[in-house]
């Protein structure tokens, strides 16, 4: 049972993919995990302070929404790279 570096990379990418495809209004809002408050640039510093004092659930929600906004476009490139790698060498 060798679990090398490549499976780890693949696992991380798959996990990020899984987080990134969670639908905001069809799934997250239904179970109450939606970050409903839109962050305005002016109050961002204050809001971050509030979020930082909250619970594990709030932190998880924050992590999910951050992953969704941040990784959406890079994931396209990463996924296509991985597909090409798998086609050539897998």
């Amino acid at each position, binding site marked *: *049972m*060798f*679990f*090398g*570096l*490549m*499976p*780890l990379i693949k696992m*991380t990418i798959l996990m990020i993919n899984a987080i990134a495809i969670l639908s905001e209004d069809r799934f997250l809002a239904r179970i109450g995990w939606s970050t409903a408050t839109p962050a305005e*640039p*002016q109050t*961002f*510093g*204050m809001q*971050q*302070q509030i979020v*930082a*004092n909250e619970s*594990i659930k709030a*932190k*998880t929600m924050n*992590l999910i929404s951050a992953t969704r906004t941040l990784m959406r476009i890079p994931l396209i490139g990463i996924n296509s790279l991985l597909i090409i790698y798998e086609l050539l060498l897998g």
Partner: protein
Amino acid sequence: MQRGNYPPNTAASPPLHHPVPQHPVPIPVMHSPPPLQASSAYGSTYAPTPAMGHPAYGLLNDPTAQMAFQVGGRATEVAGQYVEQNLGKYLQISALKHYFNVSNGYVLQKLGLVLFPWRHRPWSRSGSQRTGASGQMEGYFLPPREDINSPDMYIPVMAFVTYILLSTLLYGLAGRFNPEQLGYTASFAFTIVILEIIIIKIGCYLLNINNDSQLLDLVAYSGYKFVGIIVTLTITTLGSKWLEYLVFGYTFNANAFFLLRSLKYVLLPDTTADNPRSTTYAVNRTQRNRRTQFLFLYSYLVQLIFMWSLSSGFSFRSAAA
């Protein structure tokens, strides 16, 4: 820092320079609050940007270009500082030297501590004060040479390499040596260490532990378990199944206890004054309980899974016996 005395409107900038924006772009200041700043200072960071950007829009003659160029120069300056800070944050070359500042006595004592942590008494790292670069007194931790509780990188790195060589040797003793085994084992051990760091980082994020301890501390602590695994693997060659389980149980417990006590001062910083880098926020009771539970889970359950897979993930056991 050293870009401060750089003339902002030199026409011939070095070719390695970041491309200078031609019109005022206030974004880089918003993007890069200094990582070590308190979050309450975020608002004040934004304030000067519109004041610098907006007059440039109104004037449409030569000073506009000057202004734009100055803003652009400032943007590159800030970006350069940002890159320097982040490089300094993630790639602490000078900090690595601190971790290898060990002596023979320290290594022997620390090995004894990892294998027999039950009677050790003060677990907190000792620090002292010195005059920092900015002229004010700053606290710092003593290097491993002078403090037994300080994490080092020497033992983890050596144990890591020894683990790879030893498990390959055991394959050889079982008559199934293959040069690929070296690479497989190294990759596997690396994966375990990285997974551990990921787990502890996610835990820190979720539990809101904003410690200023570096990543390298955690890497060092996750490497100490290779010492116990090496002992277990050495016992494997004797061929006795019961002795092997006994030794594994002992080394696992010792390592978990060691981690629990050591990480307590990394992850659960106390607010008393004897800690030189003491954080000043107050932690309420439930949060503290949660952190303790996470620490326990990490140092017992997660370590059990990882140590077991590291020491028995190979099939040489039955063949060597």
